[in-house]
């Protein structure tokens, strides 16, 4: 559907790329990155609205690097939507379809379909788009983008200004548009929850480069670099040294905390590595229950030093005995209530081998 090869671009002092990326027909790819990572520039280059310094772009196996934007047939929802303020809601929605001179019966059919899908009935007769609510504007912009039947839909942080409840509704709509209408979507966001919810694949972009492309669990549990790990809020990251590497890919690490991990392929004894674990993957050992075999490797005594309460979860900061290491441990409220911990309490925690990720230290700047 879309294939990007060694694409680079400049904007002032910012340098994008080189970027290699492809997205198959019907796919949903989210590009996740902090603000200023160059996500919008990448979209603009692919749309033909900004100039690539080098590299190539294919759309449906046709090279499109030199194609003007109106011939690329990529629909675009910029962050501010850019609904035309001089046109009515209906004229906004029909703008692209009319411009492309689609047959009236095709337009009508699609319009009916989109009216139902995007619940446009109550607003399509409005004479201006300026008085629509935030969520209504999003739906009109989606209809305008989809009506001409684009081969691709680009979304640039579409929901960043919306309240949580409306945001979730529209995210579900997007998922539906992708799955039921079969629209291929490339969606740029800095919102991790959104990226994980919607992306079949997720590409992490930091400082103009793609640092990792993969499925949800790869990105979440196996960051490809320290930069990705930090951006994705891995709270628990330790810097350790490899002591022994086993034949099964497991290894013993020494340093501030002695650990046994798996997945150490390609790492040699003596190397320094970064090791991390998601705060919700840290296991608190309940004194009244038997300890599973998979918990025996990395078992530590610890003390609660801080408690952060959120809506449905609590995060304990625990200090591991005799090590100076502090780890964050996230608990659902039901577990937190059951355990009843307070600052100063002692507890035992375990770090499962399979929950730990390991990276050679030089991978921090790939």
């Amino acid at each position, binding site marked *: 559907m879309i294939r990007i090869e060694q694409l680079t671009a400049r904007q002032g002092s910012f340098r994008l790329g080189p970027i290699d990326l492809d997205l198959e027909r019907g796919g949903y790819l989210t590009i996740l990155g902090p603000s200023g990572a160059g996500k919008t520039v990448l979209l603009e280059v692919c749309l033909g*609205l900004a100039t690539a310094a080098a590299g190539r772009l294919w759309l449906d196996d046709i090279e499109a690097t030199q194609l003007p934007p*109106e011939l690329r047939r990529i629909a675009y929802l*910029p962050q*501010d939507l*850019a609904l*035309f303020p001089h046109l009515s809601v209906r004229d906004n929605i029909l*703008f*692209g379809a009319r411009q492309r001179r689609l047959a009236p019966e095709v337009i009508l059919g699609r319009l009916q379909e989109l009216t139902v899908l995007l619940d446009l009935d109550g607003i399509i007769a409005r004479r201006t788009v300026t008085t629509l609510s935030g969520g209504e504007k999003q739906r009109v912009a989606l209809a305008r983008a989809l009506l001409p039947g684009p081969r691709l839909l680009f979304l640039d942080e579409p929901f960043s200004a919306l309240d949580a409840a409306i945001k979730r509704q529209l995210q579900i709509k997007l998922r539906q548009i992708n799955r039921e209408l079969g629209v291929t979507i490339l969606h740029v966001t800095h919102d991790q929850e959104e990226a994980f919810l919607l992306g079949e694949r997720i590409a992490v972009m930091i400082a103009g480069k793609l640092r990792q492309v993969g499925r949800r669990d790869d990105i979440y549990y196996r960051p490809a670099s320290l930069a990705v790990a930090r951006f994705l809020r891995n709270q628990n990251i330790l810097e350790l040294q490899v002591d022994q590497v086993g034949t099964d890919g497991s290894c013993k690490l020494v340093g501030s905390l002695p650990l046994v991990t798996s997945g150490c392929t390609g790492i040699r004894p003596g190397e320094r590595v970064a090791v991390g674990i998601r705060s919700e993957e840290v296991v608190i050992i309940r004194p009244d229950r038997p300890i599973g075999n998979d918990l025996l490797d990395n078992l530590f005594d610890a003390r609660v030093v801080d408690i952060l309460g959120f809506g449905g979860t609590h995060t304990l900061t625990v200090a591991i005995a005799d090590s100076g290491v502090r780890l964050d441990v996230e608990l659902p409220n039901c577990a937190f209530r059951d355990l009843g911990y307070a600052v100063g309490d002692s507890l035992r925690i375990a770090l499962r081998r399979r929950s730990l990720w390991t990276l050679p230290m030089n991978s921090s700047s790939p």
Partner: protein
Amino acid sequence: MSFKRDLPFRLALIVPLAGLTGYFLLLIGSQYVFFSAAAFLHQLALPEIQAAIVLSLGSATVSALLAVGIAVPGAYLLARREFPGKRLLDTFLDLPVVLTPIALGTLILMAWNTPAGRLLDDLGLTLPFTVAGVIAAQFTVVAAIALRLLKTTFEQIDPRYEQVARTLGCTAASSFRRVTLPLAGRGILAAFILTWARAVGEFGATVMVAGTARGATATLPSSIYLAMSVADLPRAVTLIVLLLLISLAVLLAVRFALGSRP
């Protein structure tokens, strides 16, 4: 919110503005000493005055249309596209805005005495003491002003609208026609009105190029000058009241064109 302790500061803000307002009121009010409705109506009926009105409004309309017609594409180009030497060109095109119209008028006369100018003259574009000269003088003074006003107008329109239009199938030309131009509509109208007003009030360049031939090239401002040079106060007052009414209409029209914005 206003608090008592801010009173001296508030007065320091109000007094200068009140003084300026009072001064302008004195200026505009003073003519009532000299104004009489009978004289006003009598003057308006004179063919000389009527010729001046027709010439002023007509020539200003032509020169403002010309100026805006050229400035719309030019200002769009300056507002949207990058090209080498753009800053230099931009500064150069501002020159006629800050140069005194007297100098501009003289430059026109001189230009028509160069080979290129004589060629234009031979082609029928004779300026001295002609209506064409009035229009040329006004156009030269207002073209750069129109360009500047319209550049601001186009700069205030987010380029995102055009970009989205292009992803929806518009060429560069059709996105300009179907999106940018309608969005700039009010700004273009306001720029036209202001340009027109400036052309109506133009005196320095017009007087240099076309002179002040009564009933032929005498515009409204020139007619005031002529009336005052012979101390014909009733005529001067009539012309000033006329120009004040036009100015007021222009200000209201601009407010209307720009919507609620000032």
